[in-house]
């Protein structure tokens, strides 16, 4: 921030809060993330449990579950994404308005989980849509989901809205729609979206062990 920290503290003690517009917007955004009401499998039950009395997601401003993707900011992919369901998940993502975030909850959404070896399970939802936060577990406890939510809030608070390294949704040329895969004769076509899915592959050079 361009303002002198001491001056800012002095002003704060007198009731004047000095901040940048970017921080104000990010603060507002991070504190009222509206998730999409969208349960896929077992993890959805823990997601519901996280919003109920004992864990109370409302403390973090994210209890307003919207059944319509048009009104939601955050997609919690809670459960196994099968190959039949993957096109619908991508469509739902496309229907959400920017800024939008994705939280992959549980082993299945991250990598296929225990059902990975099966013929009908997508091996990670990050093959088609960009995932911001992953919450491991099978299923993750509600506390873990809340921890993931707080991590996402931190990420949102640190977003750059102007300049060269601005975030996707602040960039007029940023990618907003993901291509929806189709159910081909053997598998989903295409099997992944190379713009989103960039696994770290070690390419060995000649002579290297």
């Amino acid at each position: 921030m361009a303002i002198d920290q001491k001056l800012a503290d002095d002003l704060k003690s007198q009731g004047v809060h000095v901040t940048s517009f970017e921080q104000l917007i990010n603060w507002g955004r991070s504190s009222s993330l509206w998730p999409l009401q969208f349960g896929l499998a077992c993890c959805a039950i823990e997601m519901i449990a996280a919003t109920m009395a004992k864990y109370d997601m409302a403390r973090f401003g994210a209890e307003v579950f919207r059944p319509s993707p048009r009104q939601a900011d955050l997609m919690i992919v809670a459960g196994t994404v099968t190959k039949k369901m993957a096109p619908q998940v991508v469509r739902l993502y496309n229907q959400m308005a920017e800024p939008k975030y994705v939280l992959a909850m549980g082993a299945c959404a991250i990598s296929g989980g225990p059902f990975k070896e099966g013929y009908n399970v997508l091996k990670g939802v990050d093959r088609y849509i960009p995932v911001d936060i992953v919450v491991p577990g099978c299923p993750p406890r509600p506390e873990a989901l809340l921890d993931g939510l707080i991590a996402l809030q931190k990420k949102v608070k640190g977003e750059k809205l102007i300049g060269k390294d601005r975030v996707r949704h602040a960039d007029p040329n940023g990618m907003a729609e993901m291509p929806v895969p189709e159910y081909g004769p053997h598998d989903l076509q295409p099997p992944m979206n190379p713009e989103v899915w960039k696994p770290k592959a070690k390419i060995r050079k000649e002579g290297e062990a």
Partner: protein
Amino acid sequence: MISDPLLQQSSPVLEEGSDDDQLLRVSLGPQHPSTHGVFRMNVELDGETVVRLKPVFGYLHRNHEKIAEGQTYLSSMPFTDRLDYICPLTNNWAYAHAVEKLAGIEVPERAEYMRVITAELTRLINHTAFAGFFLGDMGAWGSALMYAFREREKILDLFEDLTGARMMSNFMRFGGCRNDLPDGWLERCRALVDNYEPFLDEMEMFLLGNEILIARTQDVGQLPKETLINGGITGPMLRAAGVAYDIRKVDPYGIYDRFDFKMPLGEKGDCYDRLMIRFLEMRESLKILKQAIKDIPEGDFIAPKAKIRGFKPPVGEAYGRIEGPKGELGFYLVSDGTPQPYRYRVRPPSFVNLTLLEEMCVGLDIADVVIILGSVDIVLGEVDR
């Protein structure tokens, strides 16, 4: 633009000249707040009245059965947790029961009692959560579910102490249970059981005389007894129609023949009866729990000769079934003498109970479809497997 043929078919279409040109086709789901997961129905409406209803399955098909055929018998135990993920412990028991039948394993007394206690607690969880979700389907989203999940968390705390996990317990073994009850667990369980009755009284006080609930559920979704029996419907749905069929009574497994409990029966079989039958069943479960906690003996929690590693049942087949919270939950296993099952088949109650959905819904309003689907009490992990 839309490439999925099913989607094309389900988008609103007006075909000129055909008999159906006044019908509106609506695709309910797979992302819909009241389909309990990723279930989808293609509904055809004449005004608001349902003319046709076709369920579309498979959005959560996780090839559970195929995976199970490629691995050892014990490796499938954690997968059974994820079938009906609201009540994993009854799934564990059904699978263990089938394998024990296949291999002829005896279960020690204490383990049987532990199984009864955990299964009846699971039934409490399922029926309590059912009441919450069912009220949510009727528009009371949140408040009823809050009460239900408050009680569910108390039982889950017990499960966590016993099995190490809130939901995915992986607790039963062939010939018993994985570990013994922790110190003080039975006392805590007894306290929970004693405090459950006031909660049920409270919940029933809210619901029984509620005019909106009565108006929306009474005389909705009835079917004749014969249709239900022919459709293979089991569990609370069948008993709500007045058919006395509870596997705990008609084909006792484990030690259920020792307990004194009743089989509540409904009269009409509408959605109201289906809700109330579950409240009555919870009271019977509490009776069983009280007796089991009183009578549980000391002893082994798993048969000492039970083989965990290198388990090979003899050649043959077995069908083990138990009364799950949703109905008859069965596992059919074929063994060819190798460590892996040759065939592994689940008979899921939610899936079979869903088969009569169209018969129940046709002629009613679209708003009733949601309630009827809620009253069937499905879990998609079990429907699609």
